[in-house]
């Protein structure tokens, strides 16, 4: 025992570093367990409180610029609202004629961005709403310009939103014009990628990409971005498609959280079918 203690004392630096590396590896391998989530939730709360205080400092230049952008946006939106009203009335008439189900409207909760962590590939924002406001993980985040991301962690008064410019973010998407489906991903850089679009599919530069009905957590029809580049690689099955996000994340200050959770009936049915298929294949 005495000898063992001597060895520990003699090599204490190595014991300390080994122990800490083991603890770190334990955290890495248990990233989503309850204990780590609880610690993360407390940290989100404390950091959100600090960031909330800091966000009170006014940015005069930023406000002026934002004001100008909002005025322009207001003019464009007024024209669009008028057009959409017409379209909605027409849509309602057609729905009634066809007896189709109503898609329903989103329930939105406004939130302020009190912190941004634009740390290379895993970009997140801290929002000043949390569990006490009914916010839960996986709720989609949008702005007036389009899809921002989804909630990944919450505390009582704050939430962390994973941006679409985050390498872990994926969602199904659709080209508005041609209804071609794909998956949105981001691998760094200024552009998003629309993946899994075969070479036969019709897609052009300037096409608008929106969320599709295949996502369980994000409602359909939310603008994601505009296609800027379509590359056809001879050796690949799919096209390489780049799109510019419709949201400017560098100036993101206010967002809305869509307070809907995945449709449990749909999720249960899909899970049941998947389970049955797996059972058959086994």
């Amino acid at each position, binding site marked *: 025992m005495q000898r063992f203690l001597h060895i520990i004392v003699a090599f*204490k*630096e190595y014991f*300390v*570093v080994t122990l*800490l*590396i083991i*603890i*770190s*590896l*334990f*955290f*890495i*391998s248990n*990233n989503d367990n309850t204990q*780590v989530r609880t*610690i*993360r939730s407390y*940290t*989100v709360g404390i*950091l959100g409180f*600090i*960031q909330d205080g*800091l966000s009170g400092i006014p940015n005069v230049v930023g406000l002026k610029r934002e004001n100008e952008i909002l005025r322009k946006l207001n003019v464009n939106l007024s024209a669009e609202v008028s057009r959409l009203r017409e379209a909605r009335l027409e849509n309602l008439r057609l729905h009634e004629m066809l007896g189709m189900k109503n898609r329903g409207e989103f329930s939105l909760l406004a939130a302020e961005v009190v*912190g*941004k*962590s*634009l*740390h*290379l*590939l*895993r970009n*997140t924002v801290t929002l000043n709403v949390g569990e006490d406001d009914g916010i839960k993980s996986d709720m989609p985040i949008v702005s007036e310009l389009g899809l921002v991301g989804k909630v*990944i*962690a919450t505390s009582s008064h704050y939430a*962390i939103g994973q941006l679409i410019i985050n*390498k*872990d973010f994926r969602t199904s998407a659709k080209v508005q014009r041609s209804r071609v489906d794909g998956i949105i991903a981001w*691998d*760094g*850089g200024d552009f998003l990628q629309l993946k899994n679009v075969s070479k036969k599919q019709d897609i052009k530069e300037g096409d608008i990409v929106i969320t599709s009905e295949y996502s369980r957590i994000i409602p359909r029809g939310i603008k994601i971005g505009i296609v800027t580049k379509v590359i056809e690689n001879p050796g690949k099955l799919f096209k390489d498609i780049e799109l510019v996000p419709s949201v400017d994340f560098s100036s993101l200050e206010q967002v809305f959280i869509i307070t809907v959770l995945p449709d449990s009936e749909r999720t249960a049915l899909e899970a049941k079918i998947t389970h049955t298929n797996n059972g058959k294949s086994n």
Partner: protein
Amino acid sequence: MGSQIKYFVISLLLIVVQSQAMKLLSLEGITPDILTIWIVYIALQQGQIGGTLWGFVIGLFFDLVTGNFIGLAALTKTICGFIAGYFFNENKTAMTISSYRFILIVLIVSLIHNTIYFVVFTRGTDIGFLRAVFEFGMATTLYTATVSLLPMFIFSRKQ
């Protein structure tokens, strides 16, 4: 004890700055890692065990603040403090921190730190090993080493 409290307060402050304000210094998405510079400084002041322990604590807090991949920064910054501790010399601390030796230590430590960090961080993406090491790892290392000139000059003026 007093110096430990000082380290703790400064560490918290630097974590907030690194996660919230460093984007202002971002060049093509690359930001300097001021936490690595701070851990090197602590290791040169406190030795290998101090550097290793503070590296772990700072890394873990940073993971919690950024809300992603908990344990990765803790791992890399622990290694960072451990390696920087090899350069600890009780009689030459002030001289090391205020000379170009400090930049060299930051460069070595940062290179090892960033290589591990980005290789793990970019797993599951289309970013390959070489791009992770050279584009992200090397660029962040050089940027961090450049920024470490600032504390070096401050300490050399103090001397």
